[in-house]
């Protein structure tokens, strides 16, 4: 590569001047992404656990409803859900912001997947554990909380971590409904500067945010591998 070609390359993708100009925008995008991600993780997993617990009560019509909802959100592409909420709900006079639409959509999707993961964890605990606990007089709820869930959680943590990362990265979809998260900031910066350097910054920001989480997940997977 000749010197001038290299220069053109860095000026296009790593243009210092452009980068410095738009750094504050990207950083504000990082804050929005973090807010969105935390909201999705907390509400999505909490709702998923709540549904799995409800399902363990084995009330048939309720379980059919849970399975229907869960399968629906597992089948729909997250972007479709976001667009449905953002562009669909206003026709019934509810106008959620892009931020709220993205949060709700991804939280529903995470709820659906985490319900299935928690449910798989609960059902994988041997029937004998229930019987032993109940035979000592523990109630259904006490058995669930003290005996079954601690064992179920151990099994659910690795798949749940992976799924959570996958869905949380979907915050970038919010850019379609004008959420000023990282990708949204980066692409508007690119349009304004006629230079793709802000996109590179955006990609770097995602790496800084998610790489540690991915590494942590790898550690958690080893740490929680089932030892007998």
């Amino acid at each position: 590569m000749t010197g001038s070609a290299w220069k053109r390359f860095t000026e296009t993708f790593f243009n210092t001047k452009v980068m410095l100009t738009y750094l504050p925008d990207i950083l504000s995008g990082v804050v929005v992404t973090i807010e969105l991600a935390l909201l999705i993780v907390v509400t999505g997993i909490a709702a998923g656990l709540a549904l799995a617990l409800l399902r363990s009560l084995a009330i048939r019509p309720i379980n059919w409803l849970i399975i229907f909802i869960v399968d629906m959100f597992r089948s729909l592409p997250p972007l479709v859900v976001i667009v449905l909420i953002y562009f669909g709900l206003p026709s019934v006079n509810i106008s959620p912001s892009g931020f709220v639409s993205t949060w709700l959509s991804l939280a529903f999707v995470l709820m659906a997947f985490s319900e299935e993961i928690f449910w798989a964890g609960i059902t994988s605990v041997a029937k004998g554990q229930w019987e032993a606990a109940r035979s000592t007089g523990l109630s259904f709820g006490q058995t669930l909380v003290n005996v079954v869930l601690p064992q179920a959680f151990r099994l659910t943590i690795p798949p749940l971590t992976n799924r959570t990362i996958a869905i949380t990265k979907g915050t970038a979809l919010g850019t379609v409904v004008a959420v000023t998260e990282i990708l949204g900031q980066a692409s508007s910066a690119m349009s304004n500067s006629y230079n793709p350097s802000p996109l590179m910054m955006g990609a770097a920001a995602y790496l800084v945010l998610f790489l540690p989480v991915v590494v942590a997940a790898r550690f958690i997977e080893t740490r929680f591998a089932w030892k007998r």
Partner: protein
Amino acid sequence: MTAPIVDARGVHKHFGALHVLKGVDLRVAERELVFVIGPSGSGKSTLLRCLNRLEEPSAGSIVVDGIDMLDPRTDINHARQRIGMVFQSFNLYPHMTALGNVTLALRKVAGKSRAKADSLAQAALERVGLGDRAGHTPGQLSGGQQQRVAIARAIALEPRVMLFDEPTSALDPELVGSVLEVMRSLRESGMTMIVVSHEMGFARNAADRVVFMDEGAIVEEGPPAKIFENPAHERTRAFIGQIQRH
């Protein structure tokens, strides 16, 4: 017989089309050790599990220590404290230590403080000879030790009756002895016990009565010497013969 501590009458159990218990009567006196034997599928485990309502009987009545177990008004969790149960596969909680396994119900069901529960659990573990294993998790214990922790978990609640569902069937032969030893000392302390097991040697020495079940009904019952040496029924004779050939 004085008023029985376990009084089951006309117990039926259906699993779908399968009629597993066909009107079983079982009365057990206080301090009695009753052995229930029979071929697999004869309904002996199901009978045991009906006594503390792990299985819901389809018909019949079950009274344990004066409590009508099948009355919907009975607080089943309270009643179960009086009926200890030991399972073939131990069913210890793998995420807790031996001590934690024993203290859980003491704290959550019997309402003991943590300190009180710990000392009661430690005493129960010492009774089964595992006082020095309190901090071990089930994965760190042998099968025989696990089963003894399971016995400690049950007796710590001071039950009036103990149910044993094939307590030694999952154990390596060399570990059976330690579990039987604990059961023998429990029996000497006056515990009422109903044992489903094929440990015929133990039955001969320790049982007051042997009940032979086949096809969901009690075929005959009597003192171990009578059932083992001189059974009245052909089916009993055939079963005892098969077991002793091994």
